[in-house]
């Protein structure tokens, strides 16, 4: 890390892949390691009862933030990946004999797409709905493919890479029109804390949320399961307070997750306005100062307030991320040169982006904790960094 010594300022924008946990969240968690509620919540002693109480209180608060009917509908899991696995595998296990079709979109996160491969091995037919150039799902196609055999549809509320706010309400109506029995799951991890979300009003059957994506600790998430919906657990072990996830509950992480919700929703409108302002300054600042760039995903109200995804043509993504890092700006790229063939982001490919657009794409997510000063610094670093990387590419013809 010597190469990073002497940095004037550091701005962490790789909030898609991990986040900085604010001090208030860490402070809320710490007493639950050694001061109180450190017991197993299923056991009959004070630390156990304390754990049981705080987990129930946390489930109640989560249920209120999500708009659930009751806390029974909240199932804490170790994260978004686990919640998505539980949603897809657990629900299809409970629907044996009712149909063999599952529908997702081409731009779902890997924790959905890779799980559909398991479903396929188990005899399900999986259809992937295409998206348009901005990343919005094709509702006509959805209507075409859902039929009496379709047991489950899973579509993200907001796309994790390009920030498109999907027409989930319309998608759900489309699905229900074609088959009222079909279960509807949405991965709402990138919507939670950024756009209004109420699972009861939306009337979805299953919804995933993630802690770190709202600046909570890593290793915790939740799956909303509507009261009337059956989901089988996918792991075996000692069942405690979480009927769908065996094993000892991680009380400090649950507390941290709920604290992060309180901070996100406590000043929801202000937070959203702040993020949207920084997002637009970043987008306008980059597109206004760097040549040959293009925004991936929609602009304005149809884009989630935190997401900035820009392709820098004639730049290789990993080289850009390292150059930015050496200047204290931390981002991720839509491709990784770690195999003989560069793997472009499946989301950008689904949008119809060319390979050089996908390979030079950079994903940044602002949070309520970023400041104007942070964005000014990023806008100072990026043009120079891009210029240097393009200087290395030189006359090598890549377009």
């Amino acid at each position, binding site marked *: 890390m*010597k*190469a990073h010594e002497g940095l004037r300022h550091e701005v962490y924008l790789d909030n898609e892949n991990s986040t900085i946990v604010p001090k208030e969240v860490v402070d809320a968690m710490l007493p639950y390691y050694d001061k109180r509620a450190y017991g197993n919540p299923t056991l009959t002693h004070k630390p156990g009862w304390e754990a049981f109480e705080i987990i129930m209180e946390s489930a109640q608060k989560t249920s209120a933030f999500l708009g659930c009917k009751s806390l029974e509908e909240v199932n804490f899991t170790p994260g978004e990946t686990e919640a998505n696995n539980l949603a897809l595998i657990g629900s299809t296990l409970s629907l044996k004999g009712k149909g063999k079709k599952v529908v997702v979109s081409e731009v779902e996160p*890997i924790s959905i797409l890779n799980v559909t491969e398991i479903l396929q091995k188990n005899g399900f037919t999986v259809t992937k709905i295409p998206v348009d*150039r901005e990343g919005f799902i094709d509702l006509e196609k959805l209507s075409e493919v859902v039929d009496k055999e379709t047991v489950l549809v899973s579509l993200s509320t907001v796309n994790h890479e390009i920030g498109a706010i999907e027409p989930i309400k319309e998608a759900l109506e489309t699905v229900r029109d074609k088959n009222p029995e079909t279960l509807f799951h949405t991965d709402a991890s990138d919507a939670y804390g950024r756009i209004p979300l109420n699972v009861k009003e939306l009337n979805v059957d299953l919804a995933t949320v993630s802690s770190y994506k709202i600046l909570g600790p890593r290793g915790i998430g939740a799956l909303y399961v509507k009261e009337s919906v059956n989901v089988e657990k996918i792991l075996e072990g000692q069942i405690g307070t979480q009927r769908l996830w065996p094993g000892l509950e991680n009380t400090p992480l649950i507390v941290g997750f709920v604290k992060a919700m309180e901070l996100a929703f406590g000043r929801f409108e202000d937070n959203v306005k702040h993020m949207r302002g920084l997002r637009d300054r970043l987008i306008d600042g980059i597109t206004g100062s760097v040549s040959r760039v293009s925004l991936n995903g929609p602009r304005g109200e149809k884009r989630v307030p935190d997401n900035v995804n820009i392709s820098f043509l*004639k730049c*290789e993504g*990993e*080289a850009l991320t*390292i150059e930015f890092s*050496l200047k204290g700006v931390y981002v*991720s790229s*839509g*491709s*990784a*040169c*770690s*195999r*003989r*063939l*560069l*793997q472009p*982001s*499946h989301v950008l*490919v689904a949008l*119809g982006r*060319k*390979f*050089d657009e996908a*390979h030079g794409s950079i994903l940044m997510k602002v949070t309520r904790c970023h400041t104007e000063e942070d964005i000014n610094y990023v806008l100072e670093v990026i043009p120079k960094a891009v210029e240097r990387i393009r*200087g*290395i*590419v*030189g*006359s*090598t013809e*890549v377009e």
Partner: protein
Amino acid sequence: MSRAPLPYNPKVLELFRHPKNLGKMDDATVTAVAGNPLCGDMITFYLKINEQDVIEKASFESYGCAANIATSSIVTEMIKGMKLEESWKVSWKSVAEAVGGLPSVKFHCGILAVGALKRAIRKYFKDKGSSPEWLQKEPSFEEKQALEDEELAKVLSKKMKTEEK
């Protein structure tokens, strides 16, 4: 998105920050390109070779990752002043060693840099209409790998075009 860990050593990062012999060479005797943006790396090598078949100058340009930039940079330094016969013996392993080691997922970046060098040497003799005895007829390992990468990229490019909206 692949997430293989990439623990670059300080030397690779240093060469990425301050690459040597970077840029187009207007008076190059021979120029060779290897790779394809779809492989993740594309390199142009420029060599200035004198009448005694000695490499007087070498430079490069790279659309590639840090490993590719670092290995290309070190190759241009290693071969400067070398006779072509000697520079032909430069292997990707010796290049990887010279940059202080590469993560295994990045070996192909070093292979491509050496592939570009060997392609340039072969082109030089082809242009000259001669072929010294030491120049093996069959493509070297690095040349073969570069060619395979390019062929794979073509297949992928075709696939992406058919899927294009």
